[in-house]
């Protein structure tokens, strides 16, 4: 009993113990902050990577793609009804993006998607810009240029009816009232109909004139452009847009034969309307990809059925088949089952199809989204481990400090230890007293540290803003670089408990040597003199 009593008593009466408490507190707060921010960073990266494709991806492995994807998609829904929710194909090709008026060009990866299906297997819709303010108006089909007209009575701009209704829907549903207020303060910038480029840069740009609100010009297929491909990123993480929604842009594509050879003709050029931009949050993707309707792209890339040299027709091809799983299905199990299904499907197909088709079928393979993004996620994972390790190393200071403090206490308390032993306390008991004392110091320190650390993490963005207001040099988190609007600011319970437990154990370890010294005190030696 005396251990508990004296440990509590020493904590109350010895000021020095609070030095130990303070060091344990600061170290555990520091590690918790690092773990939470890096962990939050990692989670966001994972979340982004996960929302990129779908849970399972059947990947062709070639640019020319593989056939019979729709047939296999239907088969999957029949064979694995408990697992597979839906499937949708996607084409991946490369081309040149050109903004006709400025003759400004960039390389691009052109993705052909069935937009209505595509947004159901991943989080693509959440990253669309105009679609947010005008829900339901972004499509990849044929469409005219939306022109904002002028109300002759008021002289104010007037959106075409369908856009105005979509915008009203957004207002009704939007929970973020600040976003609505920001929209009202500056709904869009007008661009002359003949140039389609606004004078200034802003959030939204529409073609506008003094006429009626309308859709005009030739009907062209829509294209969604990666936000970093067309726009300029501002330091606050948002984008400067200058090109009107619906302005024509050009894509130059290179169709391939089923064998992967270029067609004899020159590369083909497509003119499309810029209907929206997409932000996945991954710079490598947002600065490269453009999204076009699957069927249109398939046709233009000659991936639709083509007359074969030996007579007959080739089969339609895609580069990927995205598979959306039902809720709660384990992705690794699903991948293995889908792989097997694909193997069986291929075996059944091979005898009846052309050699080229058979080859392309054999090259396709199923992956989970994690498989595809492994290197990307692993880099962040490694970073988290490294940073936590470094700060953990610094936290060793706490162990050493606790050790020093306890050494001092034991030195001062040698006589008390002698007294305790003279009235029957054991060596282990006395050592236990000091380990218990250290544990209490660690417990108090880690609880305070976890509270402090959580408080810091919860307010980390305010702290960052405060620092940045003192000096711009102190802004460490730039939305411009990370494509995250703010520093991750959530504390996970597991992290908090883990840090707390480690801090307590570290304090105990720090007290081991002093405790051993205390255990060795020989009563007579401590008691002979005053």
């Amino acid at each position, binding site marked *: 009993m005396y251990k508990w009593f004296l440990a509590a008593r020493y904590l109350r009466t010895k000021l020095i113990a609070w030095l130990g408490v303070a060091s344990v507190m600061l170290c555990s707060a520091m590690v918790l902050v690092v773990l939470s921010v890096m962990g939050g960073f990692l989670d966001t990266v994972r979340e982004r990577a996960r929302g990129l494709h779908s849970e399972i991806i059947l990947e062709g492995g070639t640019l020319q793609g593989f056939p019979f994807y729709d047939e296999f998609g239907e088969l999957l829904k029949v064979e694995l009804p408990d697992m597979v929710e839906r499937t949708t194909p996607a084409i991946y090709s490369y081309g040149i993006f050109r903004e006709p008026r400025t003759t400004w060009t960039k390389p691009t990866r052109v993705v052909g998607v069935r937009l209505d299906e595509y947004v159901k297997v991943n989080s693509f819709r959440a990253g669309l810009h105009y679609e947010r303010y005008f829900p339901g108006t972004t499509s990849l089909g044929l469409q005219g240029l939306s022109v904002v007209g002028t109300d002759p009575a008021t002289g104010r701009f007037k959106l075409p009816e369908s856009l105005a209704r979509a915008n009203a829907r957004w207002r009704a549903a939007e929970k973020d009232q600040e976003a609505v207020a920001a929209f009202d303060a500056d709904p869009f910038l007008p661009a002359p109909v003949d140039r389609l480029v606004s004078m200034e840069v802003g959030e939204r740009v529409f073609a506008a004139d003094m006429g009626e609100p309308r859709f005009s010009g030739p009907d062209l297929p829509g294209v969604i452009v990666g936000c970093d491909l067309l726009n300029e990123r501002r330091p606050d993480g948002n984008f400067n847009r200058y090109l009107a929604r619906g302005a024509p842009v050009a894509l130059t594509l290179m169709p391939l034969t089923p064998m992967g050879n270029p067609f004899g003709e020159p590369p083909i050029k497509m003119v499309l309307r810029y209907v929206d931009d997409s932000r996945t949050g991954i710079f490598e993707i947002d600065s490269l990809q453009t999204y076009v309707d699957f069927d249109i792209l398939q046709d233009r890339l000659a991936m639709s059925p083509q007359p074969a040299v030996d007579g007959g027709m080739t089969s339609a091809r895609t580069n990927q088949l995205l598979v959306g799983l039902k809720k709660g299905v384990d992705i690794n199990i699903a991948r293995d089952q889908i792989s097997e299904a694909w193997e069986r499907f291929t075996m059944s197909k091979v005898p009846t199809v052309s050699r080229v088709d058979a080859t392309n079928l054999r090259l396709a393979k199923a992956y989970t989204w994690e498989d595809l993004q492994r290197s990307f996620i692993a880099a962040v994972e490694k970073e988290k481990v490294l940073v936590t390790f470094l700060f953990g190393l610094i936290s060793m200071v706490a162990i050493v400090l606790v050790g020093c403090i306890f050494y001092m206490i034991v030195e001062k308390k040698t006589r008390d230890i002698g007294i305790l032993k003279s*009235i029957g306390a054991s060596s282990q008991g006395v050592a236990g007293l000091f380990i218990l004392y250290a544990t209490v110091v660690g417990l108090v320190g880690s609880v305070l540290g976890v509270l402090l650390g959580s408080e810091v993490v919860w307010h980390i963005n305010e702290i960052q803003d405060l620092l940045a207001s003192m000096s711009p040099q102190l802004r460490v988190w730039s939305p411009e670089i990370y494509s995250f609007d703010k520093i991750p600011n959530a504390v996970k319970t597991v992290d908090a408990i883990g840090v707390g437990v480690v801090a307590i154990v570290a304090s105990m370890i720090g007290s081991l040597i002093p405790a051993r010294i205390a255990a060795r005190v020989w009563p007579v030696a401590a008691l002979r003199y005053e």
Partner: protein
Amino acid sequence: MLKTTGLHKSYRMGRSLVSVLRGVSFTVDRGEFVVIRGASGSGKSTLLHLLGMLDIPDRGRIEFDGGDLLAAREAERRAYRNVQIGFVFQFYHLLPECNVLENVLMPQMVRHSFLGWRRVRSTVRGEAESIIERVGLAERITHRCNELSGGERQRVAIARALINRPAILLADEPTGNLDAKIGGGILGLLAGLNQGGQTLIMVTHDSAVADHAHRRVHLVDGVLRKSEETDELATPSRIGRREVPL
């Protein structure tokens, strides 16, 4: 009850070995009051520490109630220190962070586990309070020890020694640090305890108390002698002390 035979103890002083006890043999019976005397540095404290199992002799035997303490396991020796022995030191040796009651309760806290303590706490507390009252500190029960005088501190130490109802009370110059008047009170208290049946072994130079003892032994040259021859010499010194308080 307590029997030693041929106790030897020596200390290493640099290169030489100082032999302090060279075959101490004596027996103490239940209820006895034995006074040990001897010149300063003769080994009285050393002997008392051995009797209280605070130290280990080089050679010899210590038996308590027929059991060989030196052959006993460490846990049994601890129990012996805790339960059978109450030790009163010259320098009080109280825990400065604790108050009077807590110091007195400390041997009970050492004796009981965390859970055991909860069961016995109220009973033991009552006993501690009555012992503190007996040593005359009822008013000081919640005082910190550094607020007490030397005499009061020694009374706390005696109360602490008594809390586990020890078979033997060992007192090593309990008044060595106190003036004669205060010291006289402490010695009177100890003598009174003996009259109540408490076995008492005390190192003291005070002849007046020695007179109350059943037996006086003298530690000379590392062995114990019966000290009849010194008793006559002691009487005048007793008178002298009383007349000239320090």
